[in-house]
């Protein structure tokens, strides 16, 4: 029996080998591509277990995928095989708010979880730009985060327990519902950020937080991005922890205004500081931030209220893809887009990126979570111009190496996938890579779990299948 028939025995019509379907699952939002041989849309852990068991028996790669919004090719089947589309496993199974916990399937979309939690007065803090469409499974597998990580941390801070289908099809749980546990290796964290290379996440117990009573947004503009970076360092040095701290350079501000002319954003390179907590605390923190920024800022203002704040955040979330609004011949290409450095190195990083942008003659938007050292560099090119593609590659490489040189990371929240695998050894060192390889071999001896990712399995695993 063909593999497709065996897959249909497990999931019925929710398995496909049609060329159009394989094509549509051949990429995510990155430039990485690889065509799977089969696409399967399981609806239960049992189905995932059976599919992975079959893949193990047949020696076929399995790549888990949520909404396919990743920016590093993590969900792309670069060696062919089966893509498991988990976005149909999208139930919120339990709201256990007395234990500050919710139980979800991996395909639940982040925004839907927060819409469900809001009336109960709780929220799940990791808040990526793609919140309206990315899945919780993808967030966990990439340790995603977003705008509020400066105060709330990343996804790893909010996962208590995972259900995982291992490479042989067996199912394990990694943690417990307790808010803390001291019971051996932290398997939950091992799977967080593992990008599907060790197993498939089929369920999660998440920790949720009470919604803050108040939020306030301070908007400060500066004459240079570097000066803005210095103001961020000064704010932290003053002992203030904002709930979000974002930079929008002048190009980004122009794009945002083009998308929504009614947005009240000042000229220049802009910092957005959000503070949350009680009414009194936010008023005090907002005043302190204004005082720290005032000596160097060209303007400091506060958003008029919840509505204006939401409008600015909504625009900010989607700015990554919006550069075409400024110039329809330019497209934003997601490479070199997620570097991070220690906070005090931010001005240096901004300086280097500006120099790289000039050297490669590529315009760049710089924006991102400057409060946690994560700078999103948006390079944009005319995709119909081959010379611009070549320069783009060089610029992305230079940005990655600059981040490593400054003691930082090539990815802060988007993941390594296939797009950044080549930098793993340079960033982590051979020692750490060897430990990761040993873990990978122990849990996935046949090398079928999302092969070709994280730079861990170049020397083993099944041969490339299909057109992957």
């Amino acid at each position, binding site marked *: 029996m063909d593999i497709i028939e065996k897959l249909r025995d497990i999931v019925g019509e929710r398995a496909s080998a*049609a060329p159009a379907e394989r094509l549509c699952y051949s990429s995510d939002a990155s430039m990485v591509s690889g065509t799977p041989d089969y696409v399967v849309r399981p609806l239960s852990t049992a189905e995932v277990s059976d599919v992975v068991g079959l893949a193990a028996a047949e020696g076929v790669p399995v790549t888990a995928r949520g909404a*396919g919004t990743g920016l590093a090719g993590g969900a792309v089947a670069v060696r062919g095989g089966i893509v498991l589309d988990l976005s149909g496993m999208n139930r919120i199974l339990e709201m256990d708010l007395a234990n500050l916990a919710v139980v979800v399937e991996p395909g639940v979309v982040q925004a839907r979880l927060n819409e469900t939690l809001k009336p109960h007065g709780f929220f799940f803090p990791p808040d990526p730009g793609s919140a309206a469409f990315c899945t919780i499974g993808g967030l966990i597998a990439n340790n995603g985060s977003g705008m509020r990580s400066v105060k709330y941390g990343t996804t790893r801070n909010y996962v208590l327990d995972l259900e995982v289908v291992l490479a042989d099809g067996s199912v394990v749980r990694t943690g417990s519902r307790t808010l803390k546990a001291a019971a051996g290796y932290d398997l939950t964290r091992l799977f967080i950020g593992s990008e599907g290379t060790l197993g498939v996440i089929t369920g999660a117990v998440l920790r949720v937080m009470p919604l803050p009573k108040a939020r306030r947004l301070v908007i400060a503009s500066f004459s240079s991005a570097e000066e803005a970076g210095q103001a961020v360092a000064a704010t932290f040095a003053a002992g203030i922890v904002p709930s979000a701290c974002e930079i929008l350079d002048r190009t980004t501000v122009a794009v945002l205004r083009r998308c929504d002319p009614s947005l009240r954003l000042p000229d220049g390179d802009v910092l957005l500081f959000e503070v949350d907590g009680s009414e009194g605390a936010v008023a005090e923190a907002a005043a302190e931030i204004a005082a720290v920024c005032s000596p160097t800022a060209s303007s400091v203002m506060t958003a008029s209220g919840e509505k204006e704040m939401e409008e600015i955040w909504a625009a900010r979330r989607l700015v990554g893809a919006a550069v075409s609004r400024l110039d329809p011949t330019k497209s934003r290409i997601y490479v070199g887009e997620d570097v991070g450095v220690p906070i005090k190195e931010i001005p240096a990083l901004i300086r280097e990126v500006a120099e790289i942008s000039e050297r490669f003659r590529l315009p760049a938007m710089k924006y991102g979570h400057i409060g946690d050292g994560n700078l999103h560099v948006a390079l944009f090119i005319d995709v119909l111009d081959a010379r611009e593609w070549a320069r783009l590659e060089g610029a992305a490489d230079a940005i990655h190496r600059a981040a490593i040189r400054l003691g930082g990371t090539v990815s802060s929240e988007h993941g390594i996938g296939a797009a950044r695998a080549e930098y793993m050894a340079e960033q982590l060192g051979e020692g750490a890579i060897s430990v990761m390889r040993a873990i990978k071999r122990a849990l996935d001896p046949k090398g079928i779990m999302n092969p070709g990712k994280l730079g861990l399995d170049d020397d083993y695993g099944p041969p490339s299948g299909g057109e992957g």
Partner: protein
Amino acid sequence: MRMSEERREAGIRAKDEMKIDSRSIELCVRCGTCRSVCPAFEVLGWESRNTRGRIMVAKALREGLAPDTNVLDSLNTCTTCGICAAKCPAGANPPMIVQSARKGLVSQGIMTEAQAGFREKVAGSGNTFGELGDRLGWLSDPGAIKEKADSVYFVGCLDSYRYPEVAAKTFEILRRFGVALLPDEQCCGSPLIRTGSDAGELIDKNLRQIRDMGAKTVITGCAGCLSALKKEYPPEFDVVSVPEFLAGHLAELELRRLDLTVTYHDPCHLGRGSGIYDPPREVIRAICDLVEMKANRENARCCGGGGGVRAGYPDLSLDIARRRLLDVPDGVDAIVSCCPLCIRNLRDSGAGIEVIDLIDLVAMAIDPA
């Protein structure tokens, strides 16, 4: 799927004939925003059945992807509702890409049975139902047909043949303001254009009559016709929707207040397609209470009927309609809309609540108590 024999032998000349603007395809960065709003995808779940997937398919067709059944289903399950375009951060216009891809395939004789059906019916009858009866059968007073008029009422296939009472009620009001009818109205062309066929002949026939009448304004109560008249016809005349016309004449209509609470469904081609959100609401509020649907105005969800989906994928179409009904607020007496296709689809999906045309509501408010 239909494919003529010689086409099969000649192979697909997709690359040459898929005339889709590269720029518009390259605007898509596959971010996935559209994935969260595509109504067909919500039901079907396959990546090829959402906007991002359809753009990938359209692009691959230009590069030689064989247009098999799955490709046709990918492209033809799009209702062209345009919510993806409204949400796309990069400013892409996916419905246009889908329409161009359909057109490229149809021009090579590659189409679904439903697409072929539209062509045959319209070619044989001038309407989408293949009806051979009198298009003005609903008109009780043939004397109403005039040779010259500043404004004409473009009835549309659906109201002409399926909802003649709506056509009659609409014309009853419009004729008070001197609005006339075209003597031999044909399908506006929208169903053909949406499904990839050429509508030039229909457009010419309608255009000739509009010119002969000397009409400066064309008024229609169908969102699909409105969109076609505005975007596919030369800009020689003003195109006005019935809700805009009514909102502009509220004082003269002398509407009485009704003890009703209704909700309003924004038709995609009236709202997102033509930016007409307020006029129908003004008319409703002049008559009774209005409670908005959960998703409304530019965020309104599709009824599932458009883009040839009702004809080609009836189960999908009704599934989308049922999901739209989940947006209906509690305690309303009726759903009001301004497009016969939306009304039909919402009714057929088992709304469990009355679905009426705005003109029905207005007629109730005009009738003496």
